[in-house]
């Protein structure tokens, strides 16, 4: 009587290269063949590493192909996709990179990966018309000050103590020049039209933008930036709205 191979046994052997092939898996020669079973192990690993490489192209360029593959293989070994919808596979990859000791020499790497994942989220997010200046102009000034703005479904704010926007932008083309920026950056990833756009928010507006994304009223958010010389909440708001940061004025307009 030949052994019945359960998918539990097959899956366990797939996940662990040290494990022997499940009994009952054979070949035309009538003998089990580790290299044949290895095709499946390899397909699983390579396809998942490839999915990460596609989703994190700048991260990959920053560390080089070989390092990226090695790092991704460790992640893939620990983190299988939870769903057959692979679009968001790698959601925990930035946090993994933050704890990945061999990458510690590149402290900005996790934030670059966060920016890349934000791009993926924005790319696949629900379609909605962005909030426009005319929508805001209809609201009385007092009511507007007390209002909260809902981020557009495709808008993400990535804050970093590294110049992640500049690093990301420098690695979009073939040639990478020297980076002049040293300071941290807050980056808005949004999709106001057909395509995803990545924009570095002026440093003076960054706390204000973050407060709005965190759900503070416009008035309360403007207080976060008020101390900085030259901060103008109105100008900052117009800028963010123009970038497609918001989807709607929240109905719930109570002060925090």
């Amino acid at each position, binding site marked *: 009587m030949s052994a019945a191979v359960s998918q539990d046994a097959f899956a366990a052997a797939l996940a662990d290269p040290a494990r022997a092939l499940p009994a*009952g*898996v054979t*070949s035309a020669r009538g003998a089990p063949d580790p*290299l044949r079973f290895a095709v499946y192990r390899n397909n699983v690993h390579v*396809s998942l590493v*490839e999915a990460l490489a596609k989703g994190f192209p700048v991260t990959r360029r920053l560390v080089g192909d070989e390092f990226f593959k090695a790092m991704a293989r460790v992640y893939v070994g620990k983190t299988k996709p939870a769903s057959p*919808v692979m679009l968001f596979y790698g959601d925990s990859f930035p946090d993994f990179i933050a704890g990945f000791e061999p990458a510690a020499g590149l402290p900005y790497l996790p934030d670059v990966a966060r920016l890349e994942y934000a791009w993926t989220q924005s790319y*696949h*997010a629900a379609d909605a018309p962005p909030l426009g200046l005319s929508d805001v102009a209809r609201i009385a000034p007092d009511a507007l000050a007390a209002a909260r703005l809902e981020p557009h479904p*495709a808008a993400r704010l990535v804050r970093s103590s590294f110049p992640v926007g500049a690093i990301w932008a420098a690695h979009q083309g073939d040639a990478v020049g020297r980076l002049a920026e040293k300071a941290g950056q807050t980056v808005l990833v949004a999709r106001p039209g057909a395509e995803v756009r990545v924009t570095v928010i002026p440093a003076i507006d960054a706390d204000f933008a973050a407060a709005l994304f965190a759900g503070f009223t416009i008035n309360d958010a403007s207080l976060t930036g008020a101390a900085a010389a030259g901060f103008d909440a109105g100008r900052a708001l117009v800028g963010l709205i123009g970038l497609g940061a918001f989807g709607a004025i929240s109905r719930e307009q109570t002060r925090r």
Partner: protein
Amino acid sequence: MPLSAPLPHRAGLGLKPEHYAQILEHKPELGFFEVHAENYMGAGGPPHHYLEAISAHYPLSLHGVGLSIGGENPLDKEHLKRLRFLIEKYSPASFSEHLAWSTHDSGYFNDLLPLPYTQATLDQVCAHVSEVQDALGVRMLLENPSTYVLFEESTIDEIDFMAAIAQRTGCGLLLDVNNVMVSAVNHKRDPYAYIEAYPIDEVGEIHLAGYDETQDSAGERLLIDAHGSAIRPDVFELFVFTLKRTGPKPVLVEWDNDVPDFDTLYAESRRAQAALDAAAGPDVKAAQ
């Protein structure tokens, strides 16, 4: 039935994001485009914008890769809902999936894994195919797999297994000629005998692709279903032979890895179309 008119008996191509803009600009002569359903399960964004625009000009084939029809576990009801949503949104001309499994309690493997062919697995697969067809409201096509191992417990020939599924569930079959070659070489069988024995009346679509080649532990040829190159000559010959049996069918050229520029991909579709034209004979060609 939410499916639109059947796919035309012409050559089609897999739709790749790299080619969206060029396709919309030039509207190349093609029978249809096929997409992997799972790539369009995001809420919105460019993939949907482009698919809406392209499916307005071409028949669409929706090809699932993640349903795990050959799995021991129950089908993922959420995934069925996502597929149903896409079918209602795009009214594709065809929906197809694989005789394989990919989901397990430990997660999704992102590969098409093999199953033994026994009475028990046949019953299981038939139940899953019927559940899919009921949930989606369509007659689906089931694709023959490429495999690298065999199971000692298998008691049913793959062709008989496929034929029984079609007969019991009423589903159609997607005949992947590259998979036939890959499995035949890997298991030392005659690919031509496979085509001759295949239940061709149920074939609703043909797939073509390129394989990679390596060696197994005994140094014997081991073909890998890689989808990363042009159609290999032996597969193309087998395809021409297949068309003699099936007559013209919708034919898809798959090239999913190391995707080339659109012109290279398009040239592959023209080779397939030329074989289809030849199989149709001079009368049909003149009438087109």
